[in-house]
């Protein structure tokens, strides 16, 4: 199997792999310098294959694209989407005892079983810090919906302008689709990030603005610029 995974560079670059194989291989790429270099080079080669097929689209496409981008907010340079799953088991030890005390007290006060439900393995340092910031703000609010078949918890503070979306055991989305989270203000929806595999994951949202709702939709793999009409989950924010 170890020898096998290196052989996947070609199939990966050609997108000739399943979504699961792609995820697994991308994890492998983070650890295999030789494969990462090979992927980098073979991507350039694949690009040349693509360029050889270039065709002019209908001229009207340009106006359509330019019109749409005027309605699409650009992502900031620091991606605030943190997909999941990089075990950092030492973060709990590095938290100061004061911060840990705040978390425990706030969590108890709000009746949220966050700390119990989530492994240290699922939460990065940055998210732990965001959690502490929110929970220690005077106006922290939490809302949670679900059961043993999937739970979504929202933790936010308007004064800190931070929000954490915590998914627990969400069922895997259908093939070819990802969950996408949105902060909604009236008719305006801004993407808060993707939960590509469901399961247990955390999204951090900075800049809540005056959003009054959070919605979760199913979108094609990779997400959409606008939410599809059917909400999988919906939360009202105070």
């Amino acid at each position: 199997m170890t020898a096998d995974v290196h052989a996947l560079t070609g199939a990966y670059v050609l997108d000739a792999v399943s979504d699961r194989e792609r995820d697994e291989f991308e994890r492998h790429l983070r650890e295999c310098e030789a494969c990462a270099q090979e992927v980098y080079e073979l991507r350039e080669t694949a690009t040349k294959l693509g360029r050889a097929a270039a065709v002019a689209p209908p001229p009207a496409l340009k106006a359509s694209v330019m019109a749409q981008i005027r309605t699409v907010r650009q992502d900031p340079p620091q991606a605030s989407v943190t997909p999941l799953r990089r075990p950092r088991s030492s973060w709990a030890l590095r938290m100061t005892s004061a911060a840990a005390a705040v978390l425990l007290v706030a969590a108890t006060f709000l009746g949220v079983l966050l700390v119990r439900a989530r492994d240290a393995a699922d939460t990065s340092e940055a998210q732990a810090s965001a959690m502490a910031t929110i929970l220690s703000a005077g106006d922290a609010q939490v809302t949670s919906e679900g059961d043993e078949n999937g739970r979504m918890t929202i933790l936010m503070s308007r004064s800190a302008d931070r929000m954490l979306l915590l998914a627990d055991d969400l069922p895997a989305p259908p093939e070819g689709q990802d969950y996408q989270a949105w902060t909604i203000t009236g008719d305006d929806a801004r993407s808060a990030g993707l939960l590509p595999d469901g399961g247990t994951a955390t999204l951090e949202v900075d800049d809540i603005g005056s959003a009054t709702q959070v919605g979760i939709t199913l979108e094609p793999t990779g997400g959409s610029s606008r939410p599809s009409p059917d909400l999988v989950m919906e939360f009202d924010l105070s």
Partner: protein
Amino acid sequence: MGDRVRRPQEAAHAVPRPGPDGSALLQRVARGDEAAFEQLYDLLIGPLYGVIRRIVRDPAQSEEVAQEVMVELWRTAARYSPERGSAMTWAMTVAHRRAVDRVRSAQASADREENVGRRQLARPFDEVSEQVTTRLEQEQVRRCLGTLTDLQRESVVLAYYGGRSYREVGELLGTPLGTIKTRLRDGLIRLRDCLGVA
């Protein structure tokens, strides 16, 4: 071959080259520069739409996917940095992935089989009249594809232009999966060496 010598400079130049630097444009787009985005559109849309159209086939859906790709480039421009490669490679990677996702999520994979299968094997460049790429680029790719073994070439073409997974390629060609993975990799490496990593 042919009754006159064809020199590279005679090829049609519908795609501006070298012209604007895609990498610089994309970095300006990251700061919200719409004029830069418009230039980026002009630079990229031929290759993007072409590869999408090759895979997705249907013109209306191809336009939809091309628009989704351009919007994604706008939205995520801040994630691009030049050390990750050229803007063209960045964009083409997004486009190819989205096109493949679009055809794979289509229910009627059987239709794809009969419309696309064998034709892809025979002639990867069948829409000569609509080509905007330079003759030179197209000839280079054609020539370098010719240096592959039949199995390597068929695998690569089915995967890249046909949007097939390596398992589907294995089924279509009646070849074990391990062999297909190796052929795809060896074929791309041979193409890389032939085309050069410029």
